[in-house]
């Protein structure tokens, strides 16, 4: 036990004293600070610039279809509130030149009540103006049609613009709210496990290639070595996560008023406490399972360069698990059969089960079964990994085949 503590302390100090580790953490915190303070910064800049220029982009309308240009201008102005809508009688060519010279941003040439041309300088991928214009014109067309058949313009407008009120009460989980934080959590889980898993593998392989292993293996028990290394990297990972998310939370609270009612940001920081605890549980267990295996794989490679090829199969399993969860999340069906199965398999359950808990309603017994399977696998894999480690660290040369390793474990 004393040995384990010594190893844990040594390995943890390795991380904390590591300049790269400290640098990345500081960089992430700084990046988050920039993001969280952005509205405040933007506002202090924005208020000056809006006073200085005080101009909306110009949208030109060429009316060749309707008698009443005012009605057209009114409809477009209310649909495009961010634009200075101007009716013009200039010819097509002068309109085009106004756009290319960037005096106006875009122009609609209304040819008939159901046809128009849209002119814009650079057509953006996200340009939705034609869709809005479509519905504006549709609306005008319908109102006109109703007026023709004897309805008064006011009534026609009322009919067209009737507002429906609705309230949604979610009895289970509200996916619109928890989507973002689940997404962020899963992504953090993915990044941290992949990053630290590789670090554990590299760490073991470095010890082996520098032959410090010869001494370590005779001074310390492999189980203490393995658990010391993995738990140290888990703590280092948690420190990094807490630093990043903690600072995000702090900066958010400092800028709360500036963010106002931003839906996404608000929903991220609105995470319930029990989910945070589940996150912690699945993070630690998932981290252990992968870090143990990464450590064991690292022990079979005799050079650090061999690590990348050796860990590939494990990394693939992990990426596959991540993909399944991500696709199910964006498809909105986190309770599909694949996800149900995945939430019991120890390699995938940390992400799959957590996603299901966060985004749907999972019965408690399912959670317990999943966690029990996960915990027993962590212990089992930990012990097996320590055995692989014990055998692997003294094998030099080409990485041994899987079968050879298992034979050696059986014997030892």
């Amino acid at each position: 036990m004393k040995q384990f503590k010594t190893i844990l302390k040594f390995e943890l100090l390795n991380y904390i004293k590591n300049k790269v580790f400290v640098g990345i953490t500081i960089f992430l915190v700084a990046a988050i600070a920039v993001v969280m303070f952005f509205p405040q910064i933007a506002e202090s800049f924005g208020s000056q610039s809006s006073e200085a220029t005080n101009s909306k982009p110009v949208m030109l309308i060429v009316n060749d279809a309707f008698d009443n240009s005012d009605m057209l201008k009114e409809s477009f102005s209310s649909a495009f509130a961010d634009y200075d809508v101007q009716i013009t009688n200039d010819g097509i060519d002068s309109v085009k030149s106004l756009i290319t010279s960037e005096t106006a941003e875009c122009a609609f040439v209304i040819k008939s009540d159901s046809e128009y041309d849209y002119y814009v300088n650079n057509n953006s991928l996200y340009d939705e103006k034609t869709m809005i214009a479509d519905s504006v014109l549709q609306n005008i067309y319908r109102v006109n049609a109703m007026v023709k058949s004897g309805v008064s313009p006011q009534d026609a407008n009322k009919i067209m613009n009737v507002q429906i009120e609705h309230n949604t009460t979610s009895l289970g989980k509200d996916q619109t709210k928890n989507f973002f934080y689940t997404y962020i959590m899963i992504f953090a889980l993915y990044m941290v496990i992949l990053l630290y898993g590789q670090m554990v593998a590299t760490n073991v392989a470095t010890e082996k290639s520098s032959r410090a292993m010869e001494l370590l293996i005779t001074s310390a028990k492999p189980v203490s070595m393995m658990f010391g290394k993995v738990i140290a990297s888990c703590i280092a990972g948690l420190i990094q996560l807490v630093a990043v998310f903690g600072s995000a939370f702090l900066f958010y609270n400092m800028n709360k008023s500036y963010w106002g009612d931003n839906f996404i940001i608000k929903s991220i920081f609105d995470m319930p406490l029990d989910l945070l605890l589940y996150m912690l549980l699945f993070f630690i267990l998932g981290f252990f399972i992968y870090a143990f295996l990464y450590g064991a794989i690292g022990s079979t490679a005799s050079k650090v360069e061999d690590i990348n090829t050796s860990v590939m199969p494990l990394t693939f399993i992990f990426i596959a698990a991540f993909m399944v969860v991500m696709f199910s999340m964006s498809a909105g069906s986190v309770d599909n059969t694949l996800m149900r199965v995945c939430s019991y398999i120890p390699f995938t359950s940390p992400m799959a089960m957590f996603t299901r808990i966060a985004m749907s309603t999972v019965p408690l017994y399912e959670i317990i079964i999943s966690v029990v399977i996960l915990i027993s696998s962590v212990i089992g894999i930990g012990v097996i990994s320590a055995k692989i480690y014990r055998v692997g660290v003294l094998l030099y040369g080409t990485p041994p085949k899987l079968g050879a390793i298992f034979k050696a474990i059986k014997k030892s």
Partner: protein
Amino acid sequence: MKLEIKNIYKSFGSKKVLKGVSFSAESGEAFGLLGRNGAGKTTSIRILMDVFAPESGEVFIDEKPVDYDKIRIGYLPEERGLYPKKKIIDQLVYFAELNGMSKRDAVKAVDYWLKRLKMSEHRNKRLDTLSKGNQQKIQLITALAHNPQIIILDEPFSGLDPVNAMLLKDVVKEQIEKGKIVLFSSHQMNYIEEFCSKIGIINNGEMVLQGSLHDIKRNYVRDRLVVRTEYPEKIIEKLGSQCTANESGELIIKLKSAEDKQRMMRGAYGEF
């Protein structure tokens, strides 16, 4: 204290590495384990240190099966290596702690040994800033700092200059005088001869010769003559099957008896 290794068998896969190795050593005594590369020296040491279990056979301390929680072993592996990028004091203290010392005692012991080996000036440097010989001295501290009862030194002199070799010899002699069991492993006879009262020669996983160095030297039948000559053909012609050539071109003549030596030498001088 008496260390005994009894009848150890070990194989890796189908390859039998150790086929019944036994030897013993007592406190205040150095034991030399000799053998060619791949003879099974390192495997014997690793079994002795509980890195892996033997297929059969056992390690005894004072007639009782060894309890690794109670015994302290210091080990200088043949493959040298520590953490190249760490501060020397940090890693030496770490290894001493792993071997059961408290942090305070570890720092004290490491500082003592750094001074003893004239390495104090390097205390706070990174290991990879040191020369290879100095790195080896640092590594030696990992084998000594925790005051082990058994010290295992695998090729301790390789890579040391004569001054440092002298220093190491003094340290080893001092440890033997303190009543430690020192186990040498080497394929260089000259160093072993200097300290070891007992030796064991291991070949192909078997102990082929073992006992006190003095006895071995005395009892060994001196019936061989090594001849270096420019005309080996002539001797082969005359003595025939008695001669064998060794790797460096010398002839080894097996005599009928040790008393034959003088006559053969004189005869050889006259004839060739």
